[in-house]
């Protein structure tokens, strides 16, 4: 498939001047700056096909923004090679700019004091879009994003969700092939989030817009992006599906069993008077009990879920059984905190 983004061994090192304390320190820093090198992005390769939707995930300071800045031509990479839409982002920045759209969740590109429609009209001239095309795009986006109710309201008076819809329209008026979204749902309520996600799925499906989004909200990734790239400490740690990562690092699943009321009475009790199941199979432990409910946690490798159900069924009268998959949020947190993939990435580099 044709590539929209091709980045090979991208790296970016910042020279950061360290300030010395005090006045004499400040003077010394002018003459003899103490420079520290910060490797914001290291050896990052990324290939995104036309029409893909990819989620870029990582903690703050992981190198996501730096990566996006290199992909848009705002920043010159220290090393590596990058092409976006077949263009060299730095050398052909302005040409690339007319073919991509960028939305920063925390920073609007709309004119604050003026009605939304004024910004949307002006963007035609900033991007030199043909009048007819602009009119058609505006009409379509107005419908898709339901802009009409607040088109004449000054941007400063819009709710966060409305403003985000306005910003999305602003980023798409010139028919970009690629849309970068930086935290597009940050601070939005559930309904507004759902609406934005629905819209993004629609433009991806209908117009074939390639979408690269950074987010902290794993729901965004789960609902929008079949593919997820995890970045930490400037390195790419993972590139694959959301499901696979849950499989690999999901840790333990939870089974919630609701026992028959009569059964409960016969079971041994702990000091708090809650039931305790004895002689559980290996790899299964009881994590919580609140009669008649009992929570059992078990590893993916310990035994298949149906065997655990069978095991329980053979010994107790069950009224109900439900399973809880580990939250992807927790999985990702574990990956950062325990450096699960980081050690792996370093190891594979040494080999």
């Amino acid at each position, binding site marked *: 498939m044709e590539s929209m983004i091709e980045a090979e061994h991208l790296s970016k090192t*910042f*020279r950061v001047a360290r300030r010395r304390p005090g006045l004499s320190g400040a003077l010394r820093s002018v003459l003899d700056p103490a420079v520290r090198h910060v490797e914001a992005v290291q050896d990052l390769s990324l290939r995104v096909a036309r029409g893909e939707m990819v989620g870029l995930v990582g903690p703050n300071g992981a190198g996501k923004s*730096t990566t996006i*800045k290199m992909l*848009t*031509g*705002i*920043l*010159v990479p220290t090393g590596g090679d990058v092409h976006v839409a077949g263009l060299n982002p*730095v050398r052909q*920045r*302005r*040409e690339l*700019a*007319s073919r*991509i759209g*960028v939305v*920063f969740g925390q*920073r609007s*590109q709309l*004119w*604050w*004091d*003026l009605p939304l429609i*004024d910004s949307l009209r*002006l963007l035609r*001239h*900033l*991007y*030199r879009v043909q009048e007819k095309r602009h009119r058609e795009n505006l009409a379509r986006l107005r419908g898709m994003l339901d802009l009409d109710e607040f088109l004449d309201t*000054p941007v400063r008076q819009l709710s966060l969700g409305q403003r985000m819809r306005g910003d999305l329209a602003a980023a798409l008026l010139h028919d970009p092939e690629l849309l970068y979204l930086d935290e597009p749902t940050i601070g939005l309520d559930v309904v507004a989030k759902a609406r934005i996600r629905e819209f993004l799925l629609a433009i991806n499906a209908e117009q074939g817009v390639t979408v690269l989004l950074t987010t902290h909200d794993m729901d965004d990734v789960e609902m929008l992006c079949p593919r997820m790239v995890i970045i930490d400490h400037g390195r790419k740690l993972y590139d694959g599906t959301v499901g696979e990562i849950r499989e690999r690092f999901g840790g333990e699943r939870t089974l919630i069993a609701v026992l028959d009321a009569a059964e409960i009475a016969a079971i041994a009790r702990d000091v708090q008077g809650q039931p305790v199941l004895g002689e559980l199979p290996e790899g299964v432990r009881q994590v919580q009990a609140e009669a008649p409910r009992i929570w059992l946690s078990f590893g993916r490798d310990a035994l298949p879920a149906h065997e655990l159900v069978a095991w329980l069924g053979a010994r107790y009268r069950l009224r109900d059984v439900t399973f809880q998959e580990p939250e992807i949020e927790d999985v990702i947190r574990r990956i950062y905190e325990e450096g699960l993939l980081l050690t792996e990435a370093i190891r594979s580099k040494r080999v």
Partner: protein
Amino acid sequence: MRSYIQSMMSNLLLDLRLYRRLIAMQLRAQLQYKMNVFIDIATYLSVTGLEFVPVLIYFGSFPSLLGWKVGEVALLFAITSMSFGLAELFGAGIDGFDETIRRGEFDRVLLRPAGALLQVVSSDIRLRRLGRITEGLLIFVLALGLLPGFSWTPLKLLVLPLGIVSGALVFIAILLLGATLCFWTVETTEITNILTYGGRELLSYPLTIYNQGLQRFFLFLVPLAFGTYIPTCYLLGRPLPFGLPGALAFGAPLVALAFALIAGATWRFGVHRYQSTGS
């Protein structure tokens, strides 16, 4: 070659139209608070008017300043004020560039296909600066009243606007140099202010009252005198320092343009630096 020039001209035309549209957006935004703008202009007029008080005080006690009469100094003062007022009005976007960088908005500028400098220049226009231009106009009328023997010639009528616009261009170029410094360090406004506000203050008085080093500085290094002192001397029929010919007044636009081009090249260099370092 011909088609290259044609496309360049049509690009320039589109840029000018874009500039007009962006400025119109700014004006519309500011005019939402009409009363506010009016009070701002009036306040700025009285504040800048106060700057003229020392001239009146001086001439209350002394008949002339190195041979310059009150009307002549007032004329110089008025021309300098109008030049600087125009620069403040149209250079507001450049003047506020440190804020643009600090808020991270320069990234957005680079994400658009229009030229970066064009976007920065048209990102702001400060209507209250009309106060200083009004002050300049009022003092100009006063100066003409104080110069009973003054007579206009067609060439003088040409030199006057050329000088004012050239002066404004040099002031704006200084602002641009200051903005460029923001790519290295954000704390630069004071350095620029020395040259802009300080330059306006110094050049409101006859250049020859300063030592030769300072005179050379404003003639040959930062050619502000070309937009203020030299045209005023031409209008008044006064000789220029260092035996320079009075006709130099007609060269003001070229000198200003050259200085602006140098500032522009420095700006480009700064943008490249931004792209390799981030902010």
